[in-house]
Every structure is written in C-alpha cells, then in structure tokens.
C-alpha cells in the first residue's frame, strides 16, 4: 500500500477517483454531482481499482445483477500477494465467509432467513427499553459538564452495546468491539494486514463463545444460531462464528456514523435543531432524511463475468462500489437533493442498500437513531459545536464523523 497513486492529489475524478481523499471524505457530494453529469460510471486504478456509479437508476439496476456482481468481497481494497497467502491459510482454518453478506444465491437466502427474525419490527421493539436506558445513562455521564463529544461519548457508545445486547454478549466489552470494528472497517480498509489481525481476534472471541454456548445453551442469538438448520443441517462452528462476526461488525460503526452525522447536522443547523425540538413528531421523517443525506455505507461487489453496463465494459475480477450515498443525492430521484428537508415526504433513499442484500439490521439501526436522537433532544438543550475545526471524519466504505465536540445548556 505504498504505491505512489494513493498519495497523489486527484486531477480527474472520472478516471482517477480516491474515496479516501480527505476533501472527498468530508464532502463527496460535489464530486458525485460532477460525475453524474459527465461520467456516471467512473473508474479508478487506486486502491486495487474499482468502478463507481452515481445515478439512482443505475444503482437500482446494479443491485439486481446477481450473481454477475458477486458479494464475495464487500471491501474493495485488496490485500497484497503476501497477505493473500495469510488469507488463504485463514480461510482453511475458519472458512472464509460471513454469510449472508458475503454469499450469493442460492447459499444466500437460507442464511439471511436465519438472521432476519432477530431484526423484525417486533424483535427490535423489545430492545427499545435497553436502548433508552443506555442513552439516558450516557447522557447522565456528561450532562453536568455542559459539553461532550456527541460522536465519541454518545453515538459510538450506543451501537456496540445495543448489538452486544441483541447478540447476548457482554456489553461491558463495548470498547473492545469498537477497536476491533475500526481495525476492520476504518483503519483496516486501507491496511489489509490490520483487517486480518482484527478478523482473527473477533473470530477467536466468537469461537470461544460458541464452544461455551454449545455446553450451556441459552435463549440468546448465538444459541439460536447453534440450533438452527440450513437445508436440514446444523451449522458448523465456522459458519456460526462467521454469522456472529457479521452481526457484530455490521452493527457498530455504520449506525454510529448515522447518529454522529445527525447530531453534527443539528449542531451546525440551528434552524433544523429548533424545528425538530418544536415538532418532535418529525422525528421519523427526519431520521430518514439524515439517512439519505449522510448515508454511511458503500458496499463492494466483484464482477464474475464480462458485462457491459452504463457504457463501460467490466471484466471478471473488477470491483464495483455500490455508491448508495451518491445515488441518494441524485436530482433525478429527489427534489432538491442537496437540501436537508426534515419533513421530506417522498424519500425512497437506499441508505440500507437494495435488493437481496438489503441491510438485515435496518429496523434496529432506525430504532437506535430514533431513540438516540429523541433522548438527546429531550435532555440536552440548544447545542452547538465548540470548535468546527475539531470535527473529524472517517471515510471510504463507511463514512461518518468521529469527533463532534458540542457545548449545550440544560434542556
């Protein structure tokens, strides 16, 4: 990963985009606007090479091109040849997949059906009291100070504990979970060696849990997975661990990014903040608008056979970035897409993806956002950034603010 292109400034976004470019990470929308007009299937050689669509209509079609576009590698930056050997060894030890996210049909659906009931509207509703109490106790920890980091002290603390609660693992290890997930999806995106290290840590953690729950089954998610059958057969440890891995990793920095981005938005847009405070019934459409405007997740796909799309020819082995965030700013699909409208009525955003891989945890994420924002607005008075320059962003395939220092008065 020391190749020169990665550090050079971008001159032409259509043929040489860089999803880790600091300006792009802070505000990618102007680049998407330009590409949508000029080159709707952009390409880059950086970070292992990939294609990037920006039009809503194109994303609608690309998600349906299964299995020509395979889900087997969701992270686009490839490992170096030496690390590939480590991965092969790892695959031998653990099995290489985290189904259903890394699976294609026909393997995909039975695994998806295993996890969806954990996230049905009814199941998610049962986690509201825990989430509510958690948000309140986090606010108790900083409300007296009159200031907090809305990302690190609040959003980042919520999502690992909620997913731990859902999975039946120890929420007290939330800080570890955050480190592990950052090791994979944040720092690890451009550093595959780190990705591999943290994958090992998470897999070992769950392997231990699985061994333990096989001896002492409970009514938690891991025990349910151990008992579950796919096509008449119980899952082996590798698959149970793989599914648990996915559930932990997918539920942390994604939703944390959305909660942080929402609080950053309200801290920097006092008129929207005042409006949501005055009209709390706008919470649901406001959460959808935050999801549309600050969509955190871009999934990757791998091209399996030659295919022509949008005027370009994609070859086997090519990667495609499913740029849901860019599609959510397409003026062909949204009226005034670069404007936040808390009461937006028509909002067919694709922040959770589309098609057979639609985010399985979307109901949980929406619940967490609603409870986190409602509780914040109920307990925290008018708030603003203490220092706009101190705001930091993580980018790439999961984008969101990581530092959002705010000060506030009592509610």
């Amino acid at each position, binding site marked *: 990963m020391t190749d020169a292109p990665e550090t050079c400034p971008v001159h032409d976004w259509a043929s040489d985009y860089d999803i880790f470019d600091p300006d792009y990470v802070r505000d990618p929308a102007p680049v998407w606007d330009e590409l949508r007009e000029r080159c709707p299937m952009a390409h880059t050689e950086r970070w292992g090479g990939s294609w990037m669509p920006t039009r809503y209509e194109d994303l609608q079609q690309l998600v349906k091109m299964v299995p020509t576009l395979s889900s087997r590698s969701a992270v686009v930056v490839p490992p170096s040849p030496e690390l590939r050997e480590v991965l092969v060894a790892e695959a031998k030890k653990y099995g290489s997949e985290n189904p259903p996210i890394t699976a294609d049909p026909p393997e995909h659906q039975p695994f998806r059906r295993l996890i969806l009931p954990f996230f049905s*509207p009814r199941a998610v509703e049962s986690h509201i009291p825990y989430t509510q109490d958690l948000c309140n106790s986090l606010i108790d920890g900083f409300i007296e100070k009159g200031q907090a980091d809305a990302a690190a002290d609040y959003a980042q603390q919520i999502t690992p504990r909620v997913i731990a609660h859902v999975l039946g693992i120890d929420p007290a290890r939330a800080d570890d979970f955050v480190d592990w997930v950052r090791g994979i999806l944040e720092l690890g995106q451009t550093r595959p060696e780190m990705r591999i290290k943290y994958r090992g840590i998470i897999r070992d953690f769950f392997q231990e849990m699985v061994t333990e729950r096989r001896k002492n089954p409970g009514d938690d998610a891991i025990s349910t997975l151990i008992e579950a059958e796919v096509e008449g057969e119980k899952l082996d440890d590798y698959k149970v661990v793989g599914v648990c891995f996915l559930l932990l990793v997918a539920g942390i920095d994604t939703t944390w990014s959305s909660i942080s981005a929402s609080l950053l938005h309200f801290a920097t847009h006092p008129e929207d903040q005042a409006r949501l405070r005055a009209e709390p019934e706008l919470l649901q459409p406001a959460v959808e608008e935050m999801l549309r405007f600050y969509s955190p997740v871009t999934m990757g796909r791998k091209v399996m056979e030659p295919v022509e799309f949008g005027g370009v020819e994609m070859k086997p082995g090519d990667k495609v970035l499913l740029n849901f965030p860019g599609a959510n700013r397409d003026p062909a699909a949204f009226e005034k897409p670069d404007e936040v409208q808390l009461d937006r009525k028509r909002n*067919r955003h694709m922040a*959770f993806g589309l098609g057979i891989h639609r985010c399985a945890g979307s109901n949980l994420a929406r619940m967490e956002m609603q409870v986190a924002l409602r509780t914040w607005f109920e307990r925290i008075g008018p708030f603003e950034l203490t220092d706009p320059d101190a705001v930091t962003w993580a980018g790439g395939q999961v984008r969101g603010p990581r530092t959002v220092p705010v000060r506030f008065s009592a509610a």
Partner: protein
Amino acid sequence: MRIKVDPDLCEGHNRCFALAPDLFEVDDYGLSQALNEGVVPPGLEEKARLAIDNCPEFAISVVEED
C-alpha cells in the same frame, strides 16, 4: 382505492409498515402484505400514498380498477 405489494420486489425494508401500520403487515423476515386485501379504508389514502412513495424497491402500487 386498492393497493398491492409485489412479493417479488419487496425486500423487507418495512417502510410501509412504519408509515402505515394500519394498511400493511410484515412477517418475521420483514416481507410485507397489504391488509384487507389491499382495500384502503376511507381516510387512509394519504397514508397509502406515503407508503407507495417511500418504498425503496418500488414494490407497492395502486391496483387500477376497471
């Protein structure tokens, strides 16, 4: 007004159920069905349109009556 959810297009986003719980039911996999054979009770037409307009899969539509 009559509406329907196309089971081949629905991917379980649950937007319709969140916006109009009186008009839809969802199963454990999130897959949606229109209640009351899709017949929208008077006064809920606006809710039905909201559900149609917010489905990311374009899975809900109005059934054209002859």
